[in-house]
Structure formats: C-alpha cells, structure tokens
C-alpha cells in the first residue's frame, strides 16, 4: 500500500499558498490538482477521486466544512485540514464534519508528507494544537448520568498519547516512550478521532465557541 504515492488535491483560496504546499510535498506524494473555491473543489473531488484532500478551513462560501458536507457519501476521499486558524471552533467543526486530522500551516515539509501518507492509509493525524483542544474539551467532570463512557471519556492511554502529541512527540517516539507499537499509537489516535466526531460531550461545538470567547 505504501508503494503507490497518495494522490493529493490541494484546496485553498490562496494561490500562493497552494504553490507553496505543492513544492513542500515533494516526491512521495502526487499532487493531482489544485482548487481555489468550494464549487470547483467539489467537482474536482468527484472527477479526480484523489486519496487525500488538503483542505483549508477558511474559504469563501462555506469553507472546508462545506466541501466535506457536499461530497459526503459520494467518495472515499479522506480529508486533512490545513489551516492557519487556531480558533478551536473552526478546527473542531471540520473534524466533526469528517476530516481525519488537522495540521497548522507552519508544519515542516517531512511532517506534512508524513501526515498525508498517514491520512491516505486511514489513520488520524493530530497536530500538537489539536491534541491540546481535545484534552481541553474532554477535561473536567460530567454528571455520571450523562456520560456515555464509549464516547464521552478518554481512556488513560488515549490521554497519555494525546499529551505526548501536545508535547511535540512523533508517533514513533511516543511508541518508544510508552512501550507500545506505532500501530497501537495510531489506533489510540483513531479512537480519539471517533470520539471527537461522535461525542456530544459539552456539545463540543459550543465548547469551542465558548473557548474562543474566553481565550
């Protein structure tokens, strides 16, 4: 599966930035197209069927969330959010819409390539900032009656993995630190992603909006 380079579509309304990402991605990834707006992105996804769409959070006419919403169920494409925004509400909204990860635009070239490959293989990719958001959202106590332990709580291990991501560790390093395999680390992150998408905890969107208010 790692033999074929993942086919990537870049969706961002800044041409300069698309060009930058294209040069950043290098050889291990095949960039099949670029789009600057929601409409053309939707039709390009249906036409080109890329493996991974690098998706900007903020774009005119609905942004990344709109792209995911309009292609939902019609394609097996996977989304990786790539944004300068570190507003929790935007990031959480995109993850809940179905993106498999979030990285900031200041990410280094090898890390971005690695993230694209991970997402194309179905894994989740958390940047330190997203890990911080998730830990924040899942912190604190809930009234026991309202808790669905499957969705509303992080296991001790998941929390540990997220803390290490927030501290700037790579998956490989986390695995070494915790004495588990990289695959297990990936499994934990994917589980957290699922909880993030399905949990009604704190009504996550409202949490994110509130966080922005107090930030």
């Amino acid at each position: 599966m790692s033999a074929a380079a993942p086919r990537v579509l870049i969706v961002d309304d800044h041409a300069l930035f698309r060009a930058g990402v294209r040069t950043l991605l290098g050889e291990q990834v095949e960039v099949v197209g670029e789009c600057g707006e929601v409409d053309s992105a939707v039709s390009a996804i249906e036409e080109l069927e890329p493996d991974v769409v690098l998706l900007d959070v903020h774009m005119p006419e609905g942004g990344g969330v709109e792209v995911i919403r309009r292609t939902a169920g019609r394609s097996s494409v996977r989304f990786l959010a790539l944004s300068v925004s570190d507003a929790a509400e935007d990031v959480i909204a995109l993850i809940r819409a179905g993106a498999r990860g979030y990285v900031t635009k200041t990410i280094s070239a090898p890390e971005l390539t690695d993230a694209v490959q991970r997402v194309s293989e179905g894994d989740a990719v958390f940047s330190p900032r997203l890990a911080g958001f998730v830990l924040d959202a899942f912190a604190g106590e809930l009234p026991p009656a309202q808790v669905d332990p499957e969705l509303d709580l992080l296991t001790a291990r998941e929390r540990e993995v997220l803390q290490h991501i927030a501290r700037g560790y790579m998956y490989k390093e986390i695995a070494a630190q915790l004495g588990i395999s990289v695959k297990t680390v990936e499994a934990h992150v994917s589980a957290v992603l699922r909880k993030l998408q399905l949990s009604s905890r704190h009504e996550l969107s409202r949490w994110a909006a509130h966080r922005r208010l107090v930030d």
Partner: protein
Amino acid sequence: MAPTADPSRGALRIALGAGLLVCAGLLLVRATGPWPGDAIVWPAAVAALGGLLIYRSPHSRPRARRGWAAHRQRELPPRRSPSTARARGRPEVSRGGLGVVLVLGAGFAFLWASGGVRPAGEAALAGLAVLVALALIFAPSWRRLARSLAAERSERIRSQERADVGAHLHDSVLQTLALIQRDADDPRQVATLARQQERELRAWLAGRDPATRGESVTAALEAAAAEVEAGAGGSVEVVAVGERALDQRAAAAVAAAREAMLNAVKFAGGSTVSVYAELSEERVLLFIRDRGNGFDPAAVLPERRGVRESIVGRMRRAGGSAVVRSAPGKGTEVEIAIHGRGRS
C-alpha cells in the same frame, strides 16, 4: 450629617425652597397687582413645576441614544416590581412620573375650573380619532423611515469598524511587510519578523489585550515565547490545556519555562520548540521540548549545567520541581511541575 453628603437630597431642598418662594411671590402679586384669575395662574404654575420635573429628570437626556425597546421599557415604570424599582432608578422614575401627573392634573384643573371638561372631552375624542387615522395612514412610511435610519446607523458603525481594522493593519501588518522587504536577504530576520507579526495579529483577532498579559499563565507563557522568539530567533509553539491565574508560584514556573525555551531555541537547530502546559488550580505542569541534538545528561558541559541550575534550582526554591531529559540525537525535554494552590 452634612447636607452635602447626599446631593440629590440637597437639590430637593433647594427645589422646595424655590417653589415656596415662587408661591409667595404669586400670592403677593395676587394680593396687590393685576391678576388674570385663579383658574389660569395656579394650573399654569403647577404645570410649569411638572414640566420642570420632566425635563430635569435624568431619563430625558440619554433617551435619544438608546434603542426603541429601551425607550418603551422606560415608558412603563408602574409595571416594574417594587423591589426592582427600589433597586435601580426609583427617584428618577417617580420624579418623571410626578411631573407627568402634575402637568396632566394642571390641565384638567384648568378645564374643570373654566367649565370646559365636557366639550374638551368631546374635542379630545375627535382629536384621538384623527390621530389614529393619521397613524394608520402614515405607519408604513414611518416604519420605512425608522428602518432606513437603522440601516444608516449600522452602516456608519460598519464603516467605523472598517476604519479601525484598516488603521490597525496599517500600524502592524503593513509596517512589518515593509520591514521584511527591506531585510529580504536576511532569512532569520524575515522569519523573526513574520513570527512576531503573526503572534500580534492572532492576539488581536482573538481580542486579547496586551495589557491583560500578566493575568493568566497561558498569556504569560505566550508572552515569554514571543520574547524568546524576538530575542533569540527560532519558533516556539505554545499549547495550553486548562487555565490558572498567574500567582507567585506559577510565575516562577513561567520564568523557569522561559529559561528552558531560550535554551531550547539555541540548541533546537532550527526546528520548532514545543511548549505544552497543563494548568489547573491544583497543579501546573509545563513541558518544553526541542528536537535538536540533545546531550548526555551524565556528561554535561559546565556552562550548560549553569543554565540547568537556573531552571532546576529556581523550581526547587519555588517549592516545585524541574527535570531535564535528554539523550544524544533525541532532543531535550524540560518538565516543570508545581503541585498545590498558589499563594497569592
């Protein structure tokens, strides 16, 4: 108690005195000079007093600036429960209301004294009918007028905001871009400028005031990271979970973290330094990690041990702890911890 202690009471006394003086003057004129008749002068005097009360009441001033809803709310003071009326603004309400009652009473007294109550009542009814008809006819155009006024107002606010944003961008982003163009051949300087501007813009977008920097641990960490970036170059990424007020012990932890960041930037070899903070009232936990060359803690160079002392020693004095973890080729991580509440 001195009379100046309560200005409103003093004003009331002055008003009472002035009223009595006017009363005495009127009585004097009635006894000696030309007198138009009781039915005119007394109601007129009462109406004047009422009018004075209405116009002097504090409500008459901000009225023009408030919205329609607030305006209407104020027109219905009797509906308020007595407790809230007592809690806020009862003197103003009763003063304005008293004025209205006085003016209406004076008018009624005049009509009654001049025997014109019944015809006046009929005239009032006719007038009311005309008013209602006019209201029905002109209501749409009035509403349109009100709406266009509101639209114009919000447009004015918008353009004001645009001007504010423009001014801010001009002072910050455009200046920085100019500096970047000037220093285009110095990549380090360009990166530092860009980072600084990014931080500033983010803080501004999030509505964070630079003046409140000192109040929370997160804000203090962000500020420290910005200082380190500005001073030593490189980039420092702060991720914080939870929050805590910046008490004395937390401030010590932030100061130690700042040392660790400075160190990390120096040895990180150009990669990003990660700062992760877990904050609560019970504890402060800070991790500062670089992906540089790392070192063997057993074979530390003397000058590096000095820096470590400024972190480890400082935390020990503050009643916390600091651990430095490193290995050649694996980067360095400093963990700073404080348990328990801060002494503020």
